[in-house]
């Protein structure tokens, strides 16, 4: 192998010009790439689930339309909301049910709040 010292020296002068902070800049770009990848996979999964759900609904409607006599839309059209007179809503009989419903609603909100709080803490601890 020829050493060609002069040629080697001329080539090496340019070879050692890697700028300061290059590694950090590339790693920052890599982190952005990782984030982009995870966002992309989240949206593709969401798209896939939406597509499959819509396909299932379309399939059900098609089968129902082609092979059965009844129609879902007629079924929904036949549903009527009961008419409630405002004066008769709060009676001695309905009051305990209303109180119980409010209790359940507050409890649910409280549990959802706790769930949200712990999820945030978990996310923060994972990030740090």
């Amino acid at each position, binding site marked *: 192998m020829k050493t060609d010292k002069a*040629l080697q020296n*001329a*080539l090496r002068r340019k*070879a050692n010009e*890697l700028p300061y902070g290059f590694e950090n800049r590339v790693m920052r770009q*890599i982190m952005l*790439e990782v984030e982009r990848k995870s966002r992309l996979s989240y949206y593709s999964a969401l798209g896939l689930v939406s597509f499959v759900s819509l396909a299932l609904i379309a399939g059900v409607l098609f089968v129902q339309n082609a092979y059965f006599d009844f129609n879902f839309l007629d079924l929904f059209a036949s549903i009527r909301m009961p008419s409630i007179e405002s004066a008769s809503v709060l009676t001695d009989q309905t009051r305990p049910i209303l109180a119980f419903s409010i209790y359940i609603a507050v409890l649910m909100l409280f549990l959802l709040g706790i769930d949200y709080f712990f999820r945030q803490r978990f996310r923060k601890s994972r990030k740090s």
Partner: protein
Amino acid sequence: MENLTEQDLIQSILDGNTQSFSVLLKRYQRPIHALVRQIVSNREDAEELTQDVFIKAFRKLDSFKGGSSLSTWLYRIAWNTAISETRKKRLIYPEFDENQFANLPDETVDEVLEKENDELQLLRLEKAIERLQPEEKALITLYYTESKPLAEIALILNLSAENTKVKLHRTRKKIVLLLNNEQR
């Protein structure tokens, strides 16, 4: 982590340990930059392209099957990235006819390229290298700066081993012809 083998390093990155990529980066950033820098000439472009090379490598790492060494694979990405950039610029490179190559004795080439030079001579050599074609620049960078064997250089530049050897021989002669041309 610094002592991980290539295969372990790749597996670690593919398993989601992104920080392992910094080990790969530390190992290869200088040689990859040296190759790109020599091909594209401009310092800023070289830095940006080297960055692109590593981002491409990160994106395609799962397609690396281990048919060649990781360094060869990275050099191939670097070569393809840099050559695409130079093609956009449509530069014109000096050509010499066969007689000029034939009339230049190998001994003269050896003598010019072997002797330890002064600063002025090094600058002239740098200028001559600058005027070479990208493939020739890549060839001499890989051979002289990175000490790669001809078989590996052939793989990186997508040439046959015999062709690589001939091109290296002609490139050495071409550098001397460029130096002579400049002196006139």
